[in-house]
Each structure stands twice: as C-alpha cells, then as structure tokens.
C-alpha cells in the first residue's frame, strides 16, 4: 500500500492529484482518507475533496505537514487500527503495482509564480523500518538559486513525532558540515545554505528512513525532485555489502566528530 503527502511553508503551497486508476488503467471506487498522529494514536478522517471520474484533487487548504493520505473504503478502517497501527498501514493492495509503482502527482507552487512536481509515493514497507538515507546534495540543488530547501518526509508506523538528526557530511574531507533536527511523521523543511552545496557533500539520516526532496527557487521558477537511493546504483548481488560498507564509513565519521 502506498501513501501520499504534501508540504506547505510561507512561500510554497502544494497540491496532490491522486488517480483513481493504476498504471494499467484499472479503476477503483475508493475514497480518500488522511491520517496523523495525535496522543499516540492515529487520527483518521475521510477527506472531502474535489474529484472527477479519474482523479482526486487535494488542494492546498487540505494539506498540512503532519498529514498523509491514502485510498480506502470506509469499512476497511477498523477501530483497532488506531492503536494497532502496523495492520492499519496495510488495508488494501490496490496501490501495490508492478513494474511501475502507483503514484500521485505532488506539485509545489508559488502563488502567481512557477510550479514543479514529481510522481510521488511513500511505500508501506518503508514505514516499518528504521535505517539511514544517503543522498547527494549537489545533484539537485543550485548554488545560484535564491533559495534551496530539502523537504525530508518520514512516515513511520508508530503514531508519534519522535525526533532524529540529519547530517550534512563532506565524504572526501570526512567532516560534518551541519546537523539538523527532523521529526517522524512530518514533512520537514531543511534550509540549505550555499556553503553546503558541495560536490562531495551528502545528506545522511540517523536511524530514520524518509524521502529527501530537493527544492530550488529562482525568480519564482522552481525545481523539485528526489534523489535515487544508493541501491539504485549497484545492480549486482553485492549491492548490500558495498552500500553497507560506505554507510559504515559515514557512521564512523559521525562517531568520531559528533
């Protein structure tokens, strides 16, 4: 099952276009629900949004940084799921598609300005695990932009806003350049100053998974995209040992310097 999320800050607004069909053009009659953690339980609500025969349109006024959205039938939302959250997260399999993942269009925009989007999903399997995200800073940010941001989105099966850290590390110099706090189940905004946009600088998360999304803004034009996870780069069977070794080296930099 896949989840969908948005983002808002003082300048940027967002909207989600969630399809009623999968890539193979099979349609469903699900509704849209939102969920957020409250008092260590999930607060689940049916969302009333614009829709047509093909899509749900979740506009900016319905989007909050602590919410995520999913497709379901009302009778699939059982009371026990509010505390028994691991099951809650796997209500139906309509969005479990191959070879292409089921995605919604996640667009950010500036009022009277530009817009940028990507085809977005947060897989259920990611909500069950902790780990380390390793992502290059230089690939998607722009030193010449007016503003550079990273949106780090986590969805975790436990209904809380536990805090963790994101490190900006120069892998070549083996130096920590900055440390930022983020929280679980939230669309976290990380401002990135130009000094951090180096060719050897990587973002590394401490025991938390999530999707790092890179935003540059210049003259009201926007670029918005995510990086590939490291296992995308190694296709052979040694991918986990190779990536594990690199992450171990980065953890050693953190242990020695922080």
């Amino acid at each position, binding site marked *: 099952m896949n989840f969908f999320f948005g983002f808002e800050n003082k300048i940027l607004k967002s909207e989600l*276009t969630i*399809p009623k*069909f*999968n*890539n*193979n*053009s099979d349609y469903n009659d699900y509704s849209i629900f939102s969920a957020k953690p409250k008092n260590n339980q999930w607060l689940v609500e049916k969302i009333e949004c614009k829709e*047509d025969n*093909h*899509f749900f*349109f979740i506009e900016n006024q319905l989007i909050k940084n602590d919410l995520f959205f999913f497709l379901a039938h009302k009778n699939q939302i059982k009371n026990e799921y509010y505390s028994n959250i691991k099951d809650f997260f796997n209500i139906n399999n309509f969005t479990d598609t191959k*070879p*292409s993942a*089921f*995605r*919604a*269009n996640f*667009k950010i925009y500036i009022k009277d*300005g*530009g*817009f*940028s*989007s*990507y*085809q977005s999903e947060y897989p259920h399997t990611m909500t069950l695990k902790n780990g380390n995200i390793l992502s*290059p800073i*230089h*690939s*998607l940010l*722009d030193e010449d*932009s007016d503003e550079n941001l990273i949106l780090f989105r986590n969805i975790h099966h436990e209904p809380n806003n536990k805090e963790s850290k994101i490190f900006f590390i120069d*892998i*070549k110099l083996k130096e920590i350049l900055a440390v930022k706090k983020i929280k679980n189940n939230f669309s976290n905004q990380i401002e990135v100053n130009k000094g951090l946009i180096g*060719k*050897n600088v990587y973002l590394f998360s401490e025991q938390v998974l999530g999707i790092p999304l*890179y935003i*540059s*803004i*210049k*003259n*009201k*034009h*926007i*670029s*918005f*995209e*995510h*990086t*590939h996870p*490291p296992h*995308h*780069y*190694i*296709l*052979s069977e*040694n991918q986990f040992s*190779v*990536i594990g070794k*690199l992450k171990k080296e980065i953890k050693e930099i953190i242990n020695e310097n922080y």
Partner: protein
Amino acid sequence: MKIIKNSKYSKYIRNFLGYKPALTIINSNIKNLSTSDAFFWRTDSNFKTIFRYTDIFKLFFNDPTSKAEIIFYDRNSKFLKKIIFEDLDLSNNLVIDKNFMNNIEDYGTFYIFHYSNINNNSIIRNSCYTGYSQSDNLPSFVHGNTVTALRNLNDNQVEFGIGGKTFFKNNIFQIQNSFKNSKVELMIMNPTNQELKIIINNEEFGLGTCCSIIKKFERIQTIKIISKCYLLRPIVFSYRDKFLDVYHG
C-alpha cells in the same frame, strides 16, 4: 540454477511467457558491467540541458582510476559525439547547449558509461539527473528513467536496446496525472532492440530502436500509452505561462 536464472535467455523466456517479466535484458552472470539509462538532451526552443552525474566507482569502491564516457545520439539514434571525462568529482556537472552540440538545435539521447583500471566485480547503473532550462531560467530537474544500454567492461562492447518487451500482448502505461489545464510535451524513447508500434490516446506511430520523439498535447485529461515495451515511461514537459515543470511519467 542461478546461472540459468541470471542469463539473458531466461529473461527472454520469462518475457515471452509473460511470467515475472524482466524490465531489462541483462546477463547478470557477467560481473563487470556499466549500465546506463537513456537520457534526453534538448537544445531546441531555446533549451539547454544540465546533466549531473555521480562517479559511482569512486563513491562506492573508492576507486581512483575511474573515468566516465558520455555518448550522444540524435533523435534517430545516429551517433553524434562522445567525450571521456577524467579526474571526476563525486558529483559532476555538464552543460549541453547549442554550442556544445555543434550548433544543433534539436533533441536526442545520450548515455553514460563508467570504466576503471580496476575490476570492481559489480554491475553498476548510472541513473543521474537531467535539468532542462528554457531561456536561461532555473532548470527543472528529473532523475533517470529507464536502463537502456550497457558496456561490458571486460571487452568494452556496448549493447543498446536492453529494455524488456512482450512478444504478443500490448502493455498499457497510463500516466497518473491530470493534464486538463496543461500544455504538455512527452519525450519518449524506445529502450528495446526492435521498432515499437506505439499508440498514445488513439494516435499510432512507429519508433525505431533507441530513437526518440516529442509528442505535444493540449487540453486532454489523461494520457494512455500502449506498446509492447514493459515500461515506456515518458519525460513530461508541462508548461504554464512562462513557467516549466519537467518530471517522469
């Protein structure tokens, strides 16, 4: 058993039968391959393309001897030029504009292969990021999309058109976005080793192996792409006023 499962022929048979289809036809028994997505360059309509790529051998294998070769083709998959880059940073930047393309104002594809003096005994993929800037505005970035070519680092042979396809049944790829209020261009390339018959919203056309095409649409709500390719996923250029958004479908 594993050798058979990893072979190209096993993947051809799976695709022929439609059983656990393979998106790419790679002989995974060879452990020294550099694979590449097909990336689009465009210099038409006052565009330039920004290409950002990682030195994979340096990042993952701490290999100081790595180099990158980038090979450019036109929209009909005719060879244009190739460049070898040495002394790479972990992250690298290439600006592809009209001057770089010898005054060609058009579009096509390019591929990146890494190689090294050391046998790293791995299959790597560079899926990189391409940014598209029109009229010198901020480029809109999109990540790589479909593995299309490989270089065998043992004998330096390059193989194109490794995208998986069905033999009889057509596949549908319906883009999961609404285009009702947009003017859009779809950049499509054929990642397979045979000409594809492609149908987009009832318009039918042929596209040769590794060739690319831009199709324009306006005021339509959904886009459905039918072909024998398992993953014919386009790059979408969406326009509103002077603003541009580029993403993969």
